[in-house]
Each structure stands twice: as C-alpha cells, then as structure tokens.
C-alpha cells in the first residue's frame, strides 16, 4: 500500500529540502519517490499546502500524578461541553489524556515528551501516556533529590557506580533520559531551607547542587544516552535568577547540557521595580556555548496552573496562587507542587515574562539549539502554540501586542527593537529536525526515506496561528488521523525509552536498598509491559554506548 502526498511545499530542514514535491509513504515509513508513472493506492493533494514532518515537543507536562492532581484540584477549569464523537471516546472530556492526544495531533504534533517523572511515579505516568491517543511519547526520569544518588556521592563512589544506578533508573522507569529539578533543593526544603543556590550544600549529604548536576551530566553522557542531562536550574522565577542560569551554562564545560524553560531564569534586577529582562545576557551566553541547548517556556496570558517537581519554588510561590489553593506533596525524592496561576497582560511582571520568552527565541541565533516550549502548562497551555508561532513569524503582530502591554514593562526588555522573523524552515527546524536530533530519534523529525511516516500538512495561510492550529492532514505511522483539524480516528502510540548497558550487580543492590529502606520489593518501582495495558507500549531507542 503506497500513499502519496502530492504537490505540496515540502519543508524538511534535516535534508535541506524546501520545494514543491511529493512525499511517499509505505508500510508506515517514508519511502524514496518511486519511478515516474507509479500509481499510489491513496493520493492526498497538497497543492498550495505546507508539508512537514510531525512536530516533536520535548518538554510538556501531560501525564502523571502531578498533572492528575492538578485536574482534581481545578475541576472548575475543565468542564466538558461537547457531545461525544463516536470514533474517539472521551476526547471531549475537558482535560483528559484523550483530549491531550487529540489536541496535539490536530496541531500536527506526533511525539511529546513528559519531562518530569519521579521514578516512584513512573508507572502512573506511563498508564496516562498509554491512554493518550495518536501521539508517541516519552518520559524523563528525575534524579538529584534522591537518597540513593546522594548517598553514592557522599560515599565518593566511582563514576561507573553512578552510571549503573542511572542506567537502572532509566530501565526501571522506561525513560528516554534524565532530568534534574532544582538539584538538592527539595532536600533543602525538607530541612526547612527557603532558598537554595547552585553552590549551596545539601546538608545531610555534604554535596552541592553543582556537584549533583555535574555528576548526572557525566553519567548521562558516559552511558551514551542521546538526550543530554535536562536541567531545571535553582532559583526559578526569581529576580536575579539570570545569574543562576549563567552559572549553570558555564558549568556545562564542553559536555552537552540542556537547560529547560530558560525564560523562567531570564530576570535581572534592573529598572525601577527591580525586575527586568536578562534575555540578551542569557542569549549571548547560549550563543557562545555550543554544547548547550535550551527550551524557552514561553509565557502567554491567561489562566493556567503551574506543575513542578521543584517543591522549593512551588512552596515559596504558594502565596501567589490564583485561585488561592495549591498542593505541595513531599515524597521519597523531589516531591511535587501544584500552584494555579493567572498570567495577566496588565501585570508588569507577567508582561516582562512574556517578552523575555520571545526575546530568547529571537536572540538565540541557532534554531537547532533553541526549542519551542511553554513548559506546558506552566508558562501557558500547549494549545497556545499556534499563537506563539505567529508571534515569532510576524514582527507587526508583535508590535500590535507590545502596544497593548504596560509600557514600563516593555521598557525593561529589548523586544520592541527586535525585527527578526522566523521562517517556516526555522520553525520546522526548531519543532521537527532539532528535537529529533536532541532526543536521539534518528527516524523522526524528517521526511527522508526510512523515517517513520509522521507527516503534517498545513494550509499555507497568511494567518499563521490559524494554519498551525488545525492541520489539514496529519499522518501517524503512515495512517491518516487528522483531516481539516479534526481527529478522525484513534491509534495508540508508543513510549520511547533507552536501556543503556549496566553492571547487573546494581540490580541486587537496589533490591537490598528497597528492602532496607522501605520494606518493599523493588519490583514496585518497575514498569512492566503488561501493566501498561496496551500491546507493545514501548519502543527502544539506541544509546551510543
């Protein structure tokens, strides 16, 4: 069975392709164009349309205990309203995993990474992801506030011992990579610290936040895990947090390091209100540090809820909850905090935050190293992506919105002076080719022969938001799943995971550790295929080692 997407403008930055042509699909994969005269079993006319690979979101909180608790905390925000479409059960539930998969697919996204899975909650996250239709997904396992790792560091254990533990965690939790969230900060909060920085010491273990980050960076790299350590820095959201981000960037020291939602660290202390954009400084640092990648975490105005494993930050932010209710959970490692928040266009700080994100997008030169996120839902829900694409591609649209924001806020940013506009190729790089490379997914994010046939076709509208909100056609694994912005049928994606080699002695060690510390079997921490409830729920991604 051959499918032909005919005559569209094919934009495939991984292969330097931008021109009118066909894309051919067979057995769920992209194939070379067959000889002229070959007839396709199905042809989709894409005349006047844009054809790209399916988009990849590297950082979006879509599943797990924290997201689910946010749902239960805020029933008033997600009333369902529509009748049930027969072919897509539960897709009309206001804020369900089913709705999540459909909404992503409608925008042409086909792979999404849930970036904050505490190892003990991995099964829960995978169960939710298994109920998220159409898209493929992956999780990042969070280490760095856990007793076992810090115990190894305190005991000055070897690099290979730490690598074995990281490899064990990746396997047990079926994750694609490792993230660290405010390294040591959750432990500091448990000891009643209210502030914790990069060179502060976790008192019970005698190690600094910097040492935790460096240890995990080296272990991830040493194991050959394609995705570099994914870092949520200390001091998120505070005036002056730019210094923390700059220190962390400098600490990369030539090894790959990914900084998440950099916007939330883009705040200096200049200006009459002691709060200003530090985006130019951060962008300059990122431009100069070729081993560093970042994602933005753009803020958009409106009601949302912040969901984070950074309990220290969320604890300190609890007084700013809008509406006034919040959850702080403490557990065996990071814990979690859920604080609803309403970003207001009339609010000085929120307006600066909005500008900082856009500045980072526009001042970082290389679209291969800056990634498109809102840190969903922390900066804004992922459903705002189309509006952000439009802002990046149109300086007049930006000028209109800047004019409506507090002038004193815009005055402490450089956004009004920036004229850069993203091209469609740069958008495709940032949302397709680059994420696939960053995550080590060789057969995604491009339209070359052999790639998984995840394809998004958009009408080439002047209104870019309209264009990206509702794809004309979306194919997942070669199968048509969206037509004219509407999901036409479900299919069940897989979770992508790595399994680097390890010395199996760590397995016995973890069994003992769980028995001693918890009186429980370490089997409880594992995510077996059968528990997930879908056939072949996982896909193995190869490591370099």
């Amino acid at each position, binding site marked *: 069975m051959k499918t032909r997407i005919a005559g569209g403008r094919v934009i495939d930055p991984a292969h330097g392709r931008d021109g009118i042509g066909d894309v051919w699909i067979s057995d769920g994969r992209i194939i070379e164009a067959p000889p002229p005269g070959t007839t396709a079993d199905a042809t989709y006319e894409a005349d006047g349309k844009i054809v790209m690979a399916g988009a990849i979101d590297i950082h979006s909180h879509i599943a797990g205990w924290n997201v*689910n608790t946010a749902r239960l905390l805020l029933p008033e925000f997600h009333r369902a309203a529509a009748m049930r479409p027969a072919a897509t059960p539960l897709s*009309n539930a206001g804020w369900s995993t089913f709705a999540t998969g459909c909404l992503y697919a409608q925008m042409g996204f086909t792979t999404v990474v849930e970036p904050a899975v505490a190892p003990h909650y991995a099964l829960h996250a995978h169960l939710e992801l298994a109920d998220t239709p159409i898209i493929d997904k992956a999780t990042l396992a969070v280490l760095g506030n856990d007793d076992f790792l810090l115990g190894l560091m305190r005991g000055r254990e070897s690099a290979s011992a730490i690598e074995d533990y990281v490899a064990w965690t990746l396997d047990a939790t079926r994750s694609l990579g490792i993230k660290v969230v405010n390294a040591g900060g959750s432990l500091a909060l448990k000891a009643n610290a209210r502030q914790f920085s990069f060179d502060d010491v976790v008192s019970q273990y005698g190690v600094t936040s910097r040492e935790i980050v460096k240890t995990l960076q080296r272990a991830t790299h040493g194991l050959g895990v394609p995705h570099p350590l994914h870092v949520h820095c200390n001091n998120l959201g505070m005036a002056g947090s730019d210094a923390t981000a700059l220190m962390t960037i400098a600490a990369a020291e030539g090894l790959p390091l990914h900084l998440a939602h950099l916007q939330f660290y883009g705040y200096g202390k200049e200006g009459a209100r002691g709060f200003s954009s530090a985006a130019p400084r951060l962008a300059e640092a990122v431009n100069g540090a070729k081993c560093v990648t970042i994602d933005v975490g753009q803020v958009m105005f409106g009601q949302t809820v912040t969901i984070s494993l950074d309990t220290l930050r969320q*604890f300190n932010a609890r007084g700013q909850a809008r509406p006034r209710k919040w959850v702080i959970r403490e557990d*065996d490692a990071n814990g979690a905090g859920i604080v609803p928040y309403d970003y207001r266009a009339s609010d000085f700080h929120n307006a600066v935050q909005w500008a900082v994100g856009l500045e980072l997008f526009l001042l970082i030169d290389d679209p291969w190293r800056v990634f498109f996120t809102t840190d969903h839902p922390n900066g804004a829900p992922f459903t705002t992506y189309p509006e952000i694409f439009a802002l990046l591609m149109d300086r007049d649209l930006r000028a209109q919105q800047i004019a409506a924001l507090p002038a004193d806020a815009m005055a402490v940013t450089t956004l009004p002076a920036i004229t850069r506009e993203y091209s469609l190729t740069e958008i495709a790089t940032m949302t397709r080719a680059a994420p696939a490379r960053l995550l080590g997914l060789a057969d995604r994010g491009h339209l070359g022969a052999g790639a998984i046939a995840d394809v998004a076709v958009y009408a080439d509208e002047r209104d870019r938001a309209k264009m990206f909100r509702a794809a004309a056609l979306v194919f997942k694994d070669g199968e048509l799943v969206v037509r004219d912005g509407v999901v036409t049928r479900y299919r069940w994606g897989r979770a992508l995971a790595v399994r680097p080699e390890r010395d199996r002695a760590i397995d016995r060690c973890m069994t003992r550790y769980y028995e001693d*510390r918890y009186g429980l079997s370490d089997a409880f921490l594992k995510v077996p295929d059968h528990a997930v409830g879908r056939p072949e729920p996982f896909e193995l991604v190869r490591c370099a080692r």
Partner: protein
Amino acid sequence: MGRAWIGGKPAALERALAAAAGLLAASRCPLIAGLGTDVAGARAAIGLAERIGGVIDHMNSDALLRDLAVLREAGMMAITPNEARLRADTLLLVGPSLEKEAPDLRRWLGLGSSGNGGGATNRSLVRLCPGGGATIPGERIVACDVNQLLVVLAALRARLAGRPVGKSGIPAKAIEEVATLLKAARFGVAVWSAVDLDALAIEMLCGIVADLNVATRFSGLAIPPGNNATGVLQACGWMTGFPMRTGFGRGHPEHDPWRHDGARMIAAGEADCVVWISAYRAAAPRWPDGLSVIALATGEATLGRGPAVQIEVGQPGVDHDGVEQCPALGTLVAVAATRRSETISVADAIAAIMAAMPGTQVAA
C-alpha cells in the same frame, strides 16, 4: 473462567455476560457502583459508563470526596507514609479509626520501633481522640469526643496563631501543650482518616499544617480509603478530568457529588440497573426490591438480595496481575498474582459485556 449465576441459578459465563449486556442495553439510567477494582477494571468501567451513558461511583466515595472537597476548596500539603517515617520527628495522629482504616499504620510510620530504614527516633507523638489499640511508648494522648474534633482543632489552630480560645471541650492546658509540641517540630506530620472527620475538620487540620509551615516544616497524611479508591480515582481523573460520582448521561463527563451519589440514586429510584463491582471482597449494600443488579464480585464477597446476574471475578494481585494504589508508597504499582487462577478479571468481564452489547464499537 469461573462461576456465574443468572437469577441465582448457576449459568455458563458467556450466558451471564450476554444477560448482563442485555440488561445494560435496556437500562435508561445505569449506575456502575462499588468499583472496588484495579486500574484496568476502573478503565473498563469508565469506558462502559461512557458507552451506556451511565454514572460511576465508588463504595468509598464518601470519605474520598471529603478529602477531595478540601483539596479543591483550599488545597493541601501531603506526604507519603514512607517519607513520614523517615523524616518526621513529630506526629499528630487524629481520630479513632486510623488503625482500622490502615492496619499497617504502625509499620508505615515506624511507630513503637525503629522501623524500616531507621526512621526518626525520639519522636514527639500526639494522639488526638484515639480509638482503642495498644499504647505506643512516649505518646501523649488527648482524649475527646470525635464530634468535638472540629472545635478542638479550631482551638489548636487559634493557639498556634497566638489567639485566645474559649471552651473547646478539652482543657486549655492540653491545647497549649500540643501547640507547643507542634511548634517545636522540625518536620511534623498530621495523620487523619476522612472516615472520622468531616470536610470542615479536615480543612481545619490542613490549615494547621499550612500555618506551621510559615516557621517550620509540616505535612499531612490522609489515610487512603479502601478498595483501591485512590487508584480508581487516578484513572477516573486522567480519563474524565473528574473524580468518581461522574456521569455520562448527556454524552460528556459531568461530575456532581450529590446527583451522582450511587446510594442516593438507588434510594431515589433513579438508577434502574446497577453494576456492582467488588474485586476486593467488600460486602455489598442491601438493594431494594426490583432493582436490576449485575454483580461482578469475588467469590467471597457478600452480596445483598440476589443479583439478576452474578459473575465471579478474580482479585487483583491474587488471581491475576494488576495495578493498584500502594498506600505505603503513595503511588500506583504493578502487583503480580500470588495464586494465579482462571477466574475472569473485572476488566475482561466488562470488555466481554461490552462486546456482547448491540452496536459495539471501539472502546476507549
């Protein structure tokens, strides 16, 4: 496989499943109740409810929704039992039913022993309105009537804030002593069961926890209700956005703790067909005459007036593998069968019933 009955008489499983499908297809207001099952069973039950426009409720929803009412009105601080054992130097145990609701509570919290992993020693332990049970060395008991708990907690919160209090039902000196102990905590944990406390009292206790965090660290531990209520809650949350007591009568999920209260729907004669799910052996309520009941229950579960259709189901973690809430870890875990049998699981039984219904389509 396993046993099945139609009208109290043994029947082949297929016939019983088909009979259940027929009853549900004919129902105008079906209720899926009990819901004591694993995550797979809950997912199947929610899929069935959507398909037939039914309501889902859980046998322990009363307690569960009291905690949830506080969560969604005021928010909450929470800690897992394991971390409480390892971290807490002060414990405030509130209410008489804790050890009935959590028979492993002493082990979870390392009470009266050093506990696993050498939990904190030299703890302050306050038991407010305790039930019976063995004493715990070093405990400070403050007795009161369970109905007075809200007033006592309010007085305690006022004293913690430095405000004067009037009569609370227990001596002012006792309130003062407890307040002093709580303030001295480096990391305290308040433990309660919503079986004992109404939502106002839970909110008051959570308020005490939040207030104490201004100066020190404190958190809360709500004993999860039984029959995997919190595990089912999680599945319900991600599938519908809402907790149990959600109905699909209008085609989309609507949560209403009063309207979709299963016991109320039965008593008011609104529900005309009930699917009673009890895979953890819990007893069923007494059903009124004439109510059409389909029971998916373990062999040992006590059933009320004979159901129209009864299908014996396996127990998760005993007869078949499953996923359920592990209270000690505070999360969902995979449990392997300890005595694997052929008895059908709730999930498979529901899938078979749905497949036997007219107009079957792809299920969620």
